[in-house]
């Protein structure tokens, strides 16, 4: 009697797991324990906390909260803010991020106190910069899973010398200490935790324990009295909670393909788009069970690819001006502007603007029968 009953119980469990509704946008990953869920909830509050000068905002900043730029349709989603980066690509082939001149993120807002002191409305770009780049605000849903993808998985897609002659030659970027980068449009930052922690001083002007000094104004120190809040302006526990919130955000649910869009994945492969926008990556070991050994439908290889001169802007780390990390397409359904700077008003326009290594795929898409193009676009709009 016991065996059939236990089999039934296991069967019921499996059935309920199989039928479990995937998390809605903005909800946490399935399978978090109670403590992790608590961290997610408390981190979300800080993610949406609006800072003011009296609580640490600025004196240079791009936004008053994390949620100001990552807000649609939920906290962690996309935003319409566009920020400015600038670096210098030197004649010896190296990239100067202008870190001694306030770079490479140049804040677009200042507090009233800094405006009164210096008469500026935003941080000036130094003359040494050889290029500026505009950067739109992407969604960060599922980024905890990207964080958990092992370096070896990413490197397995690299082919810097195009030895397989497919015209695609992805290569990794490296942070300033040599670690593999994966976050940011140029794949500079190795981990989600560092990306999040560094964003407080750079984007909001809020110092944190790991970055206890304020950004400079294009290399000049902040004038005395302009920022009276003691550093660090946010404690380590709050930073860790925000990191937990972002890390535990569930990825967008898998698309429910209907009609013509069901042919989308096949067409995506056929055109060669999937060579860089790798449909699925696999996470490795993780101290969080919900992040360990999972497939993530990221549609990226997290590598740098040459996108051609028309899209080129700044260098960063090892990335040349025309190299960009393959943009993850998960969450594409939430975007209204496309490409790294939001210059494309539609997915079709974004595809048309692909250059460099993507030319062959772009042209294959352009020559598809109209019905196939529509099918592929319908699929992409559901990612």
């Amino acid at each position, binding site marked *: 009697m016991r065996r059939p009953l236990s089999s039934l119980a296991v069967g019921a469990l499996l059935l309920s797991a199989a039928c479990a509704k995937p998390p809605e946008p903005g909800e946490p990953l399935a399978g978090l324990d109670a403590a992790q869920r608590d961290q997610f909830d408390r981190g979300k509050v800080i993610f949406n906390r609006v800072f003011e000068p009296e609580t640490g905002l600025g004196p240079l900043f791009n936004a008053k909260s994390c949620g100001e730029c990552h807000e649609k349709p939920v906290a962690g989603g996309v935003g319409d803010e566009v920020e400015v980066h600038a670096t210098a690509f030197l004649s010896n082939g190296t990239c100067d991020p202008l870190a001694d001149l306030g770079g490479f993120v140049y804040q677009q807002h200042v507090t009233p106190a800094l405006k009164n002191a210096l008469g500026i409305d935003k941080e000036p770009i130094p003359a040494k910069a050889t290029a500026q780049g505009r950067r739109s605000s992407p969604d960060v849903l599922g980024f905890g899973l990207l964080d958990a993808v092992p370096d070896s998985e990413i490197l397995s897609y690299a082919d810097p010398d195009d030895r397989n002659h497919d015209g695609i030659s992805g290569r990794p970027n490296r942070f300033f200490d040599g670690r593999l980068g994966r976050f940011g449009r140029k794949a500079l930052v190795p981990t989600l935790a560092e*990306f999040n922690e560094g964003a407080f001083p750079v984007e909001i002007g809020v110092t944190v324990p790991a970055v206890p000094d304020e950004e400079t104004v294009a290399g000049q120190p902040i004038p005395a009295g302009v920022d009276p809040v003691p550093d660090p302006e946010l404690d380590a526990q709050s*930073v860790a909670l925000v990191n937990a919130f972002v890390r535990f955000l569930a990825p967008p649910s898998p698309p429910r393909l209907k009609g013509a869009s069901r042919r989308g994945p096949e067409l995506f492969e056929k055109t060669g788009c999937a060579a860089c926008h790798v449909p699925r990556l696999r996470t490795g070991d993780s101290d969080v069970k919900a992040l360990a050994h999972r497939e993530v439908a990221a549609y990226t290889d997290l590598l740098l690819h040459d996108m051609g001169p028309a899209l080129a802007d700044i260098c960063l780390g090892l990335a040349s001006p025309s190299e960009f990390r393959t943009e993850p397409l998960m969450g594409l359904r939430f975007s209204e502007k496309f490409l790294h700077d939001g210059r494309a008003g539609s997915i079709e326009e974004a595809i048309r603007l692909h250059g460099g290594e993507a030319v062959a795929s772009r042209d294959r898409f352009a020559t598809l029968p109209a019905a196939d193009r529509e099918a592929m676009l319908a699929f992409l709009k559901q990612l």
Partner: protein
Amino acid sequence: MTGIIGRGASLLTLFLAVFLSGGATSAAPPSPAATPAPAVSSATLTATVRSVDAQARALEIVTGVGYALRVVKLTWKEAPTVRAAAAGTGVAQLKPGDFVRVEYAKAPEGNVVRTIKLLPRPAPEVAR
């Protein structure tokens, strides 16, 4: 804080704090002598060479946390040997873009290099 945040984040925070602030990793205990010596602590950074000027005894390296980048300026009293795969590399042979691990003292006159290790370029990536 528990679980992931407790261990992972606190270690990361400590690691990064040392990175950016150039904080002490092995601060010497205060001297009991009547005339206290200036406090000197040491720090270690793994970073990218931004510039090197052997004549001016000036080395600049770039480090940071995420997008928050900082330049750390260093000097030396006696030209340090650069530990590298190739024997006998001098500091003048360092180039912008090299990855280095630098141990230095935080002294009143600035950050003084103790040792420099030139890190090998990352291994070639696997072709798919």
